[in-house]
């Protein structure tokens, strides 16, 4: 029996028959009826009155169905495993949703005075202490709305730190295996990016590092375990090299799941750390966001953290806006509060033992998978030092498969979808040819990993037998393989309902195909 995703030939909302009017009920509306004319007069006089908003008027039941149907054509961790490497798609505990409901802060305004939200501030204060402890940092700021924003904040902190000392350091060192947001963030802060190659062992090439550090080195951005899932075992030497040259160490916390509770970036020599609450701490990804970021710092760098910081004077919790050297604010108000509450609950539920279990099991899962897969087939496998254990994730290469059969990492991924299993992350990190990056997190049970091995192996076998099947995949998803060339073609690009002609053209094509 085959899996099939739900398939609704669901209209766009614009294609639903719209009512002339909306019959929505607006609170207390009649009380102000008299004042509507007054306002309209004024707007009219200024010639800026809007007459029409071209969005359909429907009824509530129709709206509900539309989105329920769309949801059935989507796939998240609550549907099945989503072992996207680098994304730490772990289970989002339901108690965190309930926690948000229980706290009842939907209507709490960010400009509320501190003394009226002590219950909330205490939670944030505890969380801040916990995150500092977990990372081995002195202080954390909740400002960054996500990981990349944490990186940007960190890059600015590094920049300002050097400037304040009158040093001109404009080079940021970044491994070639790094996530794209690292160079992008550093570039946004005005740094020149110096790429450091990865050694055959899957770790930073120390000689290369030594050869580029200089008095222009502002810092090194690193994630450890790195994006190959390999722990940078020379991290203390690396830190030494960078620090000796006057540079700072930035830790990309996206991969913290591989060592949380076991080792701390602070102890490794990092000066600044960002965390992705939506990865390591179980906050949901929401189909892309919002997540939640945190940026932490040690020693002299604390002064540079974006403000405000949560503080406690022994009797009261409050926001500390004091900013002598800080980089300022990087977004309005305090942070992505719901993600912070979720992280608080997540840590509270697990405690020290649980967090350690998270790292242990996520690493166990990765290595079990690698071993099991290698027993089933040997075409798709590790690159770089195959004897080294991986941590939270692993990267396989389908390049042999591609050579043999013409089947690409993408084809393999698409075919896996047909089994009701989410595909790996494809083509990242860039240093691995035909990369398939897989991260189970601690949450996937053994039997799902076994099944993943089975499906991946079956797919490899199919590639040799009938590569066409993979090229045509997926067939069991709501829709079959999409034409991305057409999607990106500048003349055919359709970015909204306003691209009327292009849509008409597309519909014509569809009719004739």
């Amino acid at each position, binding site marked *: 029996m085959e899996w099939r995703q739900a398939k609704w030939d669901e209209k766009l909302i614009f294609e639903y028959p719209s009512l002339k009017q909306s019959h*929505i009920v607006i609170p207390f509306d009649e009380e102000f009826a008299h004042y509507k004319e007054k306002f309209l007069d004024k707007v009219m006089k200024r010639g800026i009155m809007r007459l029409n908003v071209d969005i359909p008027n429907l009824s509530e039941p129709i709206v509900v169905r539309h*989105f329920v149907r769309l*949801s059935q054509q989507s796939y998240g*961790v609550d549907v099945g495993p989503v072992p996207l490497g680098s994304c730490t798609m772990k289970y989002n505990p339901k108690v965190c949703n309930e926690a948000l409901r229980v706290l009842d802060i939907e209507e709490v305004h960010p400009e509320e005075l501190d003394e009226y939200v002590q219950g909330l501030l205490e939670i944030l204060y505890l969380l801040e202490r*916990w995150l500092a402890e977990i990372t081995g940092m002195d202080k954390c700021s909740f400002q960054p709305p996500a990981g990349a924003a944490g990186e940007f904040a960190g890059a600015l902190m590094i920049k300002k730190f050097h400037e304040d000392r009158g040093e001109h350091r404009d080079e940021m060192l970044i491994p070639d295996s790094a996530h794209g*947001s690292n160079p992008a963030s550093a570039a946004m802060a*005005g740094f020149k990016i110096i790429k450091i190659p990865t050694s055959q062992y899957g770790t930073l090439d120390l000689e290369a590092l030594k050869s580029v550090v200089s008095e222009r080195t502002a810092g090194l951005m690193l994630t450890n375990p790195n994006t190959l899932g390999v722990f940078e075992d020379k991290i203390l030497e690396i830190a030494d090299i960078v620090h000796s040259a006057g540079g700072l160490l930035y830790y990309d916390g996206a991969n913290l799941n591989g060592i949380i509770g076991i080792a701390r970036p602070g102890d490794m020599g990092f000066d600044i750390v960002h965390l992705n609450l939506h990865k390591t701490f179980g906050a949901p990804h929401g189909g892309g966001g*919002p997540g939640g970021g945190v940026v932490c710092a040690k020693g002299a760098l604390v002064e540079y953290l974006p403000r405000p910081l949560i503080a406690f004077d022994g009797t009261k919790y409050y926001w500390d806006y004091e900013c002598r050297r800080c980089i300022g604010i990087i977004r309005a108000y305090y942070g992505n509060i719901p993600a912070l509450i979720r992280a608080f609950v997540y840590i509270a539920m697990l405690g020290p033992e649980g967090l350690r279990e998270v790292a242990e099991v996520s690493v166990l899962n990765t290595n079990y998978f690698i071993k099991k897969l290698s027993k089933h087939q040997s075409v798709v496998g590790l690159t770089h030092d195959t004897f080294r254990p991986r941590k939270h994730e692993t990267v396989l290469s389908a390049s042999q498969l591609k050579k043999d059969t013409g089947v690409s990492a993408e084809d393999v991924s698409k075919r896996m979808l047909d089994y009701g299993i989410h595909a790996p992350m494809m083509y990242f990190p860039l240093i691995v040819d035909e990369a398939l990056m897989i991260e189970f997190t601690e*949450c996937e049970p053994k039997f799902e990993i076994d099944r993943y091995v089975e499906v991946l192996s079956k797919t490899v076998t199919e590639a040799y037998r009938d590569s066409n099947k993979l090229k045509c995949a997926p067939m069991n998803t709501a829709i079959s393989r999409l034409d991305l060339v057409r999607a990106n073609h500048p003349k055919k690009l359709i*970015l909204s309902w306003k691209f009327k002609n292009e849509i008409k053209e597309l519909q014509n094509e569809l009719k004739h195909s």
Partner: protein
Amino acid sequence: MPHYWIYNSDPEIKRSMLSELGINDTMELFKDVPENLILKKPLHVGFGRYLSEYEILRFLKMQREKILHPKIPPFTGIEMCIHFVPAVVKELMLRNEFYTAYTPYQPEINQGILQALFEYQSVMAELYGVEVVNASMYDGSTALAEAIRMAIRATRRRKIVIARSVSPIKRRVVETWTYGIGVSLHYIGWDENDGSVNMEELSGKLDADTAAVVVEVPNVFGVVEHRLYELAQEVHRIGGLLIVFANPLALGVIKPPGELGADIVVGEGQPLGLGLYYGGSTLGILGVRRDMNLIRQMPGKLVGMTRSYLGERGFALVLQTREQHIRRERATSNITTNSALNAIAALIYVTWLGGDGIRKLSLSIAARTEYLREKIRSVDRLQAPLFTDALYFMKIPIKFLNKDCETVSKELRRRGILCCSDLGRYDSELRNIATICVTEVHSKEDIDTLVDALKQVVM
């Protein structure tokens, strides 16, 4: 110790997995971590042990007791005012397939999210009067910062002219985001009569190095900038771009910025069905008119409509070569995680209202603003409203003449009313100026209660 979220933490399962690996202890998988880095003591986090769901919820209920809500809905709101969130939005956002999904990099299995984001892009494009809106930014403030950086890239110029009537919080975010990359920010004031941008001052600031002019509608004072059209003309004459930050709810009754000449539109999506949640998370709206140069400079994700090879209509992420995971240091932005779920929430809300519903809602808020404007005049010892000839939407600015704004707001709060954050906190030139925000949640009685309390407090 095993935990019920983690199947493989079960000792027996663990053992069987370890034996597959031929080892005895998971810690052997950490043998490459230098011994001295391995933590010897348990972390000092949480409550030192596993908590049950019941315990954490009971703890949170205790904390809830220490969160004291005002007696009537808040009237503050520099960056955000309180709005109503319908139950449909809350319920549908929590569809498991939506909220536990990742960014839809595998479009075939995530058509639902992609279609929803395409619809989001479309309704926002309609609201703002442009053709293209991206699939979300973090929030309004960072969206504005990115819009400015985008204008700099698009024009290859380095001067930005910002109205001082843009909210000071956003201005400070912009300062951070343009720090140290050789961009100069120039501020211009407002017309003392109607609170809109001072056009003369503006003209004086425009030159061939000007990348963009930035205004907000309604601005920090609640004033609807009504000369956007002229403004656009001026900016375009010198080859610059007009960036307009607009409240989406104002766009039900006033012409959208895109129609009046804005090149880049920006907004905060919180009024569209997102709770306040003490400030976050929200939704950054960012759009441009249909111009390939601008589109290529956009930050963030874009969803496009296309077809499958079998001839079905479908949706996918497009123009990804702009993004960090492909373009890396030359990407248009570092943004990765965005606010997709909030975008879907906003879409649900807008669909629930319908285009005509948005108009009705906007007008209802406008009517409240008119009511407050009239009512507030009766309070002595206030300059209220601050500008006599202005067109206000959602907010009325007031200036305290005899009392300190902070004192007043504390005093009001003691009476159960949250109002009147001092704008001077973020820009000292605005000291003792505050705005009163009224939205669809405020009844006449609420507004009267506030005004009465203000009267007593400023006495």
